């Protein structure tokens, strides 16, 4: 992490931050997605002198920011549908190119449902054509806008409104959740990264890098949800940091399908430290929980730590 010198300040810490998502929107207290979106769009705005247009998938972020007759966006902003943000962004980018506005960069953004489930077809199409769009997923690992139902990105064993633990049923099925960054990498797009709202300097750096690359870019931001995950709103940053420190949310960058850099964990913690404060995992810490259930998520964390070199000073290929 950079020194806290005046010049090393984040966009968010400067007095002239663009404030692209203004206060007064209707997000819940402690919303990780609102913070993530503000940081992302502010950083992009600053990096290219305000020459951005944003396309938003349906979801919490859209609903809390654009209820007529108010709207919180200080950038040209389009909401079309739930599953088509990447395709609509392709159209916006083409229009900019064809009307002499090549300098305007296009960002598409959505939650995990709009990205890994219903929007995956259009996202994959955008990647495959290498369209000039930065797609940002704010991942809170369930359909929060409709009342916390399971998505394809829901972490294994999590309790959601459609995966309520019951008897021997221990919550969301034992998949690891669809990890979109790896799917993005399989398309061999120029740039893929993961980021966390617990590390704003790192997040801003990745957005600044991504927005200046031509072609398809994908940044996957981990954004805890106090309502859906069941923890106090004041703990959002702490929960986000524990996800990173446990290894359950690895921070890395990839170019053309290959991991080029990962961020080593400053202080590795057991998965339990991240999981236990959240009500969505409370059933894993009751009595008579089978050993393999309790260990399952720790095994994923360990595997991430090995795979992305999170213990050993990270991967440094650049």
């Amino acid at each position: 992490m950079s020194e806290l010198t005046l010049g090393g300040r984040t966009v968010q810490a400067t007095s002239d931050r663009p404030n692209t998502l203004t206060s007064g929107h209707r997000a819940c207290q402690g919303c990780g997605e609102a913070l993530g979106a503000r940081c992302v769009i502010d950083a992009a705005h600053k990096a290219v002198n305000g020459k951005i247009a944003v396309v938003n998938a349906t979801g919490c972020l859209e609903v809390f920011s654009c209820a007529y007759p108010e709207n919180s966006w200080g950038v040209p902003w389009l909401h079309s549908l739930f599953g088509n943000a990447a395709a609509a962004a392709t159209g916006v980018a083409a229009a900019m190119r064809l009307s002499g506005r090549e300098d305007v960069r296009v960002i598409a953004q959505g939650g995990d449902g709009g990205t890994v489930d219903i929007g995956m077809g259009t996202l994959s199409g955008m990647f495959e054509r290498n369209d000039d769009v930065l797609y940002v997923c704010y991942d809170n690992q369930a359909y929060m806008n409709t009342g916390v139902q399971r998505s394809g990105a829901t972490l294994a064993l999590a309790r959601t409104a459609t995966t309520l633990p019951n008897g021997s049923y221990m919550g969301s099925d034992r998949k690891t959740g669809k990890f979109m960054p790896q799917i993005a990498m399989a398309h061999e797009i120029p740039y893929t990264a993961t980021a966390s709202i617990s590390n704003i300097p790192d997040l801003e750096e990745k957005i600044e890098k991504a927005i200046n690359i031509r072609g398809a870019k994908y940044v996957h931001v981990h954004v805890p949800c106090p309502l859906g995950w069941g923890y106090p709103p004041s703990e959002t940053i702490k929960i986000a940091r524990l996800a990173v420190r446990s290894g359950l949310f690895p921070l890395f960058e990839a170019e053309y399908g290959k991991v080029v850099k990962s961020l080593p964990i400053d202080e590795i913690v057991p998965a339990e430290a991240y999981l236990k404060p959240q009500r969505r995992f409370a059933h894993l810490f009751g009595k008579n929980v089978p050993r393999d259930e309790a260990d399952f998520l720790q095994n994923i964390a360990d595997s991430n730590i090995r795979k992305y070199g999170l213990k050993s000073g990270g991967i440094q290929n650049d």
Partner: protein
Amino acid sequence: MLYQSEGSQAIAKAVALCRPKVICAYPITPQTHIVEKAGELVRSGQLDGCEFINVESEMAALSVAIGAQSAGVRSYTATSSQGVLYMAEAVYNASGMELPIVMTLGNRAVGAPINIWNDHSDAMAVKDAGWIMLFAETNQEAVDLHIQAFKIAETVKSPVMVCVDGFILTHAYDRIDMPSQDEVDAFLPPYNPETYLDTHDPVAMGAMVSPEYFTEVRYLAHLRKKDSLEVIRRIGNEFAKQFGRDSGGLLHEYNTENAETIIVAMGSMVGTIKDLTDELNAEGEKFGVLSIASYRPFPAAAVAESLKNAEKIIVVEKAFALGVGGILSAEIRLALNGGAVVTVVAGLGGRNITKQMLRECFLSKTDEETVFLGLKRDVISREYRPNC
């Protein structure tokens, strides 16, 4: 320029003359030849300043057009049948956002059972999605209607769907009078949107609207759609004046003035029906034909006026609502404030409509309200067992 062309290729050429900047498409029979030709026109440099984008689904095809049009450029796509249903959510979205996208619908049946041939089930499935829907009788009309469609769309801020019968028109070779680029440029001014994604004047498009305002938003859209009837008529007249072909407008009347029986229909079958009524009238009958050119918005007042003296009205339609009956017939009945209308369901899933079949039907004295043209009764009696 007079030349011989396949319908689809002529449509693509007409679209190119309208200078769209984005053409996006996903292939589906029978729309394919249109987008193949459009792609060729872009890549060969004949349509300058346009990008042809191959996408991964119809949902993406219309969504790319939505994005491009929102960012301020003229956009076009084409589809058929299952494709328009796969993009149905975006069909509603484009009209709700008042985006003047033009789309060709190469009309085809909707499955199951899967069937690639022509009828109007696909158009009927999206008839209430808020688009202007124009039906072409011939390939010349298809060409002319596309040129008018961009102008109508941009004047009234509504997407326009040009419905062209799959295979019967899209794959047929016809004599086409193709306007020149200068002529089209004189008719259709460059696209100059009021609201679009602009970094100098940021707007948010596609807001959420609560119960407090939703009724007003829909009512305003309803008023504007009704107002567009006059615009469709006016632009049809402008086109006729400049190009000498009366191929647009709301309705096409053929011998309706002194007709005892008026046949109402849409699309390519109108030609067959006109031919037949000519023969019948030569035999002393009094038939007229009313072709609905603008199906959406529905020109109810003009329809009522045209049909007011008819003793008998027969509506021939290439789609119907299961368990209900004719769709166009119901709208004709509503326009007439009730009254007897005979429905003839014809040409489903590409079944040929012949003059002989129609002749028997039109001259029949049966009082059946709904007739299925050429229905194989032996198949029905073998397969049909009432459930109750």
